[in-house]
């Protein structure tokens, strides 16, 4: 758009520096808020360590071991220093380093959310375009129904229903878990991405089995997210439809689809980008119910279990990772939107 390549590069660099500064400041703020909230939590990590029967001396010893006897700014400093070096502490509920736990569960969520995002983007934008071209047509009604259903029906209930129908009743698709038991505990998962690991394992049938276990949870997340993309995009496209440049283009003889794809869609690109980014961020942290119903590991489930167990290191670690995802997605979206339209 800008013929001046040097100017574009400068703008990109400025945006990146600004994003990095925002990322650092937001992360610091996130860390402080999460740490403060964890400190206020009534769950007692020391009690969890020594148990209900622990003597007062053991309890005090555990508090000292966990650093709970220190003032909270000092604890925060200690934690931040560890986090900077990749040490997020030991999870009280798994007994393993939080960083290791997160390396295990995050790829599963990332895989699920990314596939769902791709499905939602393709389906959502496709439906939005069709319903904008044919407002009040069949597709338009379909978009509304899907949006309404996806946003109003509880996702765990839909998940159970889908499991009952497609897994238990019809036997078409894989059920809970990432793989059938025959594969799950025999193939290695070095990357944590089940599709990749199943493919690499070379075990016959492992990859299609992983696919069959992914279809339902991905489809559910798509159903949940597609409305959030399709409806605002459709509304934005229809708002553009009445503008002069569209009338002019049509008057010059351009086809409807040509105008929509070449003129109207680029005009709404910033909005679409923001929608996709928000949806992706929500999918990354909001898949907990799907992970629970489908018994899949993931950061949402890990965080929920940690919350129930009062596992402060795991809560802090998960929140940080989710926060970083949010900030990165927002940063990338802002940069892209800025590049597409320097006025934003």
């Amino acid at each position, binding site marked *: 758009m800008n013929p001046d390549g040097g100017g574009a590069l400068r703008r990109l660099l400025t945006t990146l520096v600004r994003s990095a500064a925002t990322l650092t400041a937001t992360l610091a703020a996130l860390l402080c808020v999460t740490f403060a909230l964890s400190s206020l939590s*009534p769950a007692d990590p020391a009690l969890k360590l020594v148990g209900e029967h622990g003597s007062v001396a053991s309890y005090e010893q555990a508090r000292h071991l966990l650093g709970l006897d220190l003032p909270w700014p000092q604890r925060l400093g200690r934690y931040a220093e560890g986090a900077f070096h990749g040490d997020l502490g030991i999870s009280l*509920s798994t007994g393993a380093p939080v960083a290791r736990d997160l390396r295990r569960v995050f790829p599963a969520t990332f895989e699920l959310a990314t596939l769902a995002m791709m499905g939602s983007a393709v389906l959502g934008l496709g439906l939005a375009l069709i319903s904008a071209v044919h407002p009040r047509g069949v597709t338009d009604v379909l978009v509304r129904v899907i949006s309404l259903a996806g946003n109003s029906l509880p996702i765990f209930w839909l998940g159970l229903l889908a499991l009952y129908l497609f897994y238990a009743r019809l*036997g078409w698709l894989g059920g*809970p878990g990432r793989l059938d038991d025959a594969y799950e505990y025999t193939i290695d998962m070095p990357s944590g991405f089940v599709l990749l690991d199943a493919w690499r394992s070379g075990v016959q049938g492992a990859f299609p089995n992983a696919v069959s276990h992914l279809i339902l949870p991905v489809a559910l997340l798509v159903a949940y997210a597609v409305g959030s993309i399709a409806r605002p995009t459709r509304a934005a496209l229809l708002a553009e439809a009445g503008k002069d440049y569209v009338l002019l283009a049509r008057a010059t003889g351009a086809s409807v689809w040509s105008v929509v794809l070449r003129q109207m869609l680029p005009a709404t690109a910033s909005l679409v980008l923001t929608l996709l980014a928000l949806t992706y961020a929500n999918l990354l942290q909001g898949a907990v119910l799907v992970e629970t119903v489908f018994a899949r590991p993931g950061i949402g489930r890990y965080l929920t279990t940690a919350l129930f167990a009062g596992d402060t290191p795991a809560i802090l670690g998960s929140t940080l990772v989710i926060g970083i995802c949010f900030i990165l997605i927002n940063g990338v979206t802002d940069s892209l939107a800025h590049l597409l339209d320097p006025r934003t």
Partner: protein
Amino acid sequence: MSRRDSSTSSFNVSERRRRRRATLLLAAGCLSGLCLAGPPDVLVVAQSLDDITSLDPAEGYELSSMQAFTSLYQRLVQPDPDHPASMTGAGLAKGWQAEPGSLAFELRPDAVFANGHAVRPEDVIWSLSRAVKLNLSPSFILNGLGWTAATVEQHLKKIDERHVRVTWSAPVGPAFALSVLGATVASIIDERETGSHAESGDLGNRWLHDHSAGSGPFKIRKYIPHEALVLDANPLSPGDAPRLKTIVIRSVPDASTRELLVRVGDADIARDLGPDQYAALRDRPGLQLRQFPSAAVHYLLFNTANTDRPELANPSLWQAARWLIDYQGIAHGLLKDQFQVHQSFLATGFRGALDDTPYRLDVSRARSILQAAGLDKGLTLTLDVFNQAPFTEIAQSLQATFAAAGIRLEIRPALAGTVYGRVRSHSVQAVWLYWIPDYFDAHSSASAFALNLHDGSTSIAERAGWSIPQLSDLTLRAVREPDAGRRLELYRFIQTQVQQRSPIVIALQERSQVIMRANVRGYRQGLNADMVYYDRVTK
């Protein structure tokens, strides 16, 4: 649902898998070998494993980890699965000689760990002393023998290559010592194997989080927190080798998903379903419902130490409460036989348990007790409960029956950790909790319900602020009592005192229900949390 019901016998696992294979082949082209039939020598159990913090017996003290320890480790003595009251036959000790203050154990000559190492007296000494030195959650059980990190090694002596002597400084009898040594925290670990994985003086604790080094019928192949525990049969297992080669315990957090898994046959056993789910599956073809008594007892506790509410210390309130619980309605109606009415702290199945149930729902009697005590002017109390089934359902039942006598209960559901925190800080008014004995001896429960020494030690009686110097003395006398018959008499008397006079209203005993495929045979389960046995299971 009904159509599926009628066709269950034909809709078996292989049929379902054939359909799935055919469909996917059709959809995706050539995808040969998509679904392997579940091997017949693998048992798949669906339950939640979210509670496991560690699989080191010196640390793990949750339901799921304790269930696993019995498969992975042996203790010197442990209850015989077929005769739980007997401590012979199942442990590493072939026999023992009891003397006042000591027990001399003879190890079985054929006792070996899963890796082939022989079980030596050194392993016994190392395992017991490391559990005390690590000082983690379950170590208080061994502390009951008077052992501390500084003194424990003095109490464990190797006599020769097959004999070891255990002594104790606490004023307890050999029967109690045997019970303590039968707890999972006293599991015997291979010192050579575990020691080689020790780091920073942790005595192998980190390594044992997800590995095993025991002599039980199974060994850990893989443990993935919150996902699965996979056990392989130990071919060197004591007695006969396990019938099945592998046990896969899958962590499935949602009860409805667990139900689906067992219904379609992808799981052989499912645990922890809701009462409605069990009722729906009870008569379903292809499935069987097994019920086992559990040692868990549920109780209502009034915190008499709450000085803001002096009514809580009034024994008339406790008495009235005993007549304000719909015992039968909760156990058999609301919770569909997942509980039985039980009103003393020793669960039915324990030697010396008091099985009489003198209390029932009688609102008018409760009202007159409250009236006589001047507590009939509209009392409002908070009731803390765990925010999950069946606690919230029980709380609602209590709310209704107490309201009939003019006591308004305000339910405060919260996470278990939060509720325990409030109980520990004595900030609750009334709370509904449950208790599972820590080891298979009456003293475990008696020391919880009838011992308050005011010395910083904790117990349920202490949490209730119940001051009982005489009853505490009696509880300590009972644990010292060498005569088995006299000891049981003492425990019966102590139970009666708690049942009739305490601010703790014991109401229900759990029944553990397990749903399994009809072809699963040989599964055994006992009273205590650790008494889950997979070694004789066939399918």
